């Protein structure tokens, strides 16, 4: 199969690779870039373990062609922590027991990261609704909803601190 060249920005770095035109974005970040935090759980866009951000939007990367991400910005779970410090969403999932086996967690976190990035205050029902494209088999989702609520609080207080610093 004739290879094609794809170029994109992944977690703030430019990458360029020669790939099979049929390669999916999930396989691209996992196998080509060795960013294995993005998981594959179903191949059918049901489970959401492969969720990452493409130009700022949460997508299920197991049904996006890597070629169609060319020229775009990709953010994976590896890219949300800064200088070794975990993002508040990550901290919240640990503190509020939002995970057990950990396999769905990167996808859950990326969806939550996107969701909370909207800055809108969400009820528990709304959090459940927006997370319904991500499956978890271990937690029964309650710990995850707790985590997202708590992450919103952490992000709010970080924002307030930032504001105070800039004043």
């Amino acid at each position, binding site marked *: 199969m004739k290879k094609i060249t794809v170029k994109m920005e992944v977690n703030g770095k430019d990458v360029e690779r020669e790939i099979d035109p049929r390669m999916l974005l999930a396989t691209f970040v996992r196998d080509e870039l060795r960013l294995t935090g993005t998981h594959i759980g179903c191949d*059918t866009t049901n489970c959401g373990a492969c969720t990452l951000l493409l130009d700022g939007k949460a997508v299920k990367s197991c049904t996006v062609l890597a070629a169609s991400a060319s020229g775009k910005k990709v953010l994976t779970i590896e890219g949300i922590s800064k200088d070794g410090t975990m993002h508040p969403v990550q901290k919240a999932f640990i503190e509020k027991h939002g995970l057990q086996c950990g396999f769905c967690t990167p996808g859950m976190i990326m969806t939550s990261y996107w969701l909370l990035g909207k800055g809108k205050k969400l009820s528990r029902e709304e959090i459940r*609704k927006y997370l319904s494209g991500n499956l*978890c088999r271990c937690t029964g989702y309650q710990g995850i909803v707790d985590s997202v609520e708590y992450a919103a609080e952490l992000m709010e207080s970080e924002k307030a601190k930032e504001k105070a610093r800039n004043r």
Partner: protein
Amino acid sequence: MGKGQYVDDITLPNMLYMGVVRSTYARAKLIKVSGEGAIDGNELRALRASVGEGAAAASNLDLMEPILARDMVYYVGQPVAAVFSEDRYSAEDKISGVEVEYEPLKAFNAVKAALEGEPIHPGTDSNILRETVVGNAFDDPKADVVVEDELTNERIMPNPIETRGIIADYDGKRLTIYISTQSVHSIKRGICSSLKLNPDDVRVIQADTGGGFGSKGGLYPEYVIAAYAAMKFKRPVKWIETRREHLLATNAGRGVHGKMKLFADKSGKLLALRGEITVDSGAFGGGMAEFTAPYIAMQVTGPYKIEKASITARSVMTDKPVQGPYRGAGRPEAAFMMERMMDMLADKLNMDPVKLRLFNMSDKPFKSPLGLEIDAAKPFFEKAVQELDYERLRNDKAGIGFFVLVPALAPGETARIRINSGKVDVWLGGNAHGQGHEVFVRKLIREELGIPEELVTLNKGDTDMLQSGIGSWGSRSAIAGGAAVVSAARKMKKEFEEKHGKFSTTELLNGTYDSFVFEKQEGQLNSFGANIATASIDKYGVVKVKECIAYYDLGRMLNPPMVRGQIMGGMAQGIGQTLYEELVHSDDGQLLTASISDAGVPIAENMPEFVVKVVENGSRLPHGAKGLGEAPTIGVPLALCRAIELVSGKRIRSTPVKQEYLSD
């Protein structure tokens, strides 16, 4: 996060990707397999040595599943050949390149058809894999009331979000396996036995394991093929299951039918129970189905005092994948049979179901005629009725379910504690796959030896570091595994005291110690649990779970946040079984529920806010723990089915409860 090392995250140099060609027929003669470089059943003539959870070989070796089909195929998805390629995409291409010639035959896909049809295995005289009678023989008692009915739990898939996967690596002498598993020891035994390898030449290492729920306890054909291929090609071989393969060919759980007849007098006193339990064992022996039917029968009387009980327990072979354990593995089925009958009896007597249940409990320990040993049930369940707020919720048509959890305590478990250079390393015979075993290990070692928790590391399973072990399943890790950790710690303490006199943690940490135990366990260590649920149903028959509360006796909680998390996760699975989850096959054996969503794994939006309550009545084990993991998958379907029954006014006889059954 994002730093885990699941099996698909591991890449070895020069690695091949394996793809599996699977039968497209539920039953057919296999005429010819042709594909360049493919391994087929004529080349690899091995049998699947065991199926799941420490199961032994089949009573009849002719009924064991071949690793690769030869002459016949018995289910859609059965491995027929394997192909190997440089990457996962071209492995898929190679699968399409293999030509398989079949001569289709009529499939016996349902238990009823299999019982009436010809034997699926040539040379056998029926499709009954095993049939036994459990309990005591008795003549039907003179009863004021007899309730008789048929009940079903359809097959469902474990569906951990990480599918199965393996890497096999051969260095010319030794085979090293990296695998997603609940037990490296079970995998090692299986591979050695299937390929007739010397145990010294095989090492099995656990990768991070993304859930199991029973599906990753035992050996599967793909593991044997990958191991064989790694030795043949002298290259590492990776196989990662797709979700579709999981749904097609991984051991399915449940798939149990019951015919029950309950005799009572007009006061509500239970006089006798007679019944039949039939398990859909799938196409081969050697699995759970060899023992699940009598195992279900043994527990069926639950917390009730019934002096006469007799259950015919049979497993029937069908043209479907082998039945395996799914969280609960026989326990939810047993409780479902009994609790549905109790609700029907209550309705017939026009009696409150809770009153009927308590009336049939003893305040003394009891051993049922089927062999179930229980403590005094009445005090626990009287308390449960209060804790579950039954008096309030009964006004909202609450369903309640009572059960006995029978954990897989026997035969015990292994543990190794090693102290070197001030660091403490631990290995456990059962391998964690989301339960956080490290928390209870650290806590127990701190309690026994005074060692600060941050110095203790629980390592992943590795057969080179721990000589033997059983596995993580059957609600056994905190009990059997915990007891082994305590025992290994005490052995180490004794060794220290014999050498140096008075025990000192500091001195211990300065030394070099290595303590291994197999802590044997016998007998039952059963515990009680209760659930309550309320529901609403709209005019289209869609059920919404409103309240869902658990009250369980956990002996002693070793890790409270994980206990809560595990219970809530199990409660979601209980709702899943009751409302959404099912593996549906067409009459000719094709899988109709071929995605994880079609198979019904619950979503966040449909789950209620769970409430978890526990009581800690310490067990006889040194650390006081009781079983936990499977309790919610037993209890929730009981309570929720009754709630649905009360709200809809329709009798619930099977799970999942279908929307079309409830809609007007």
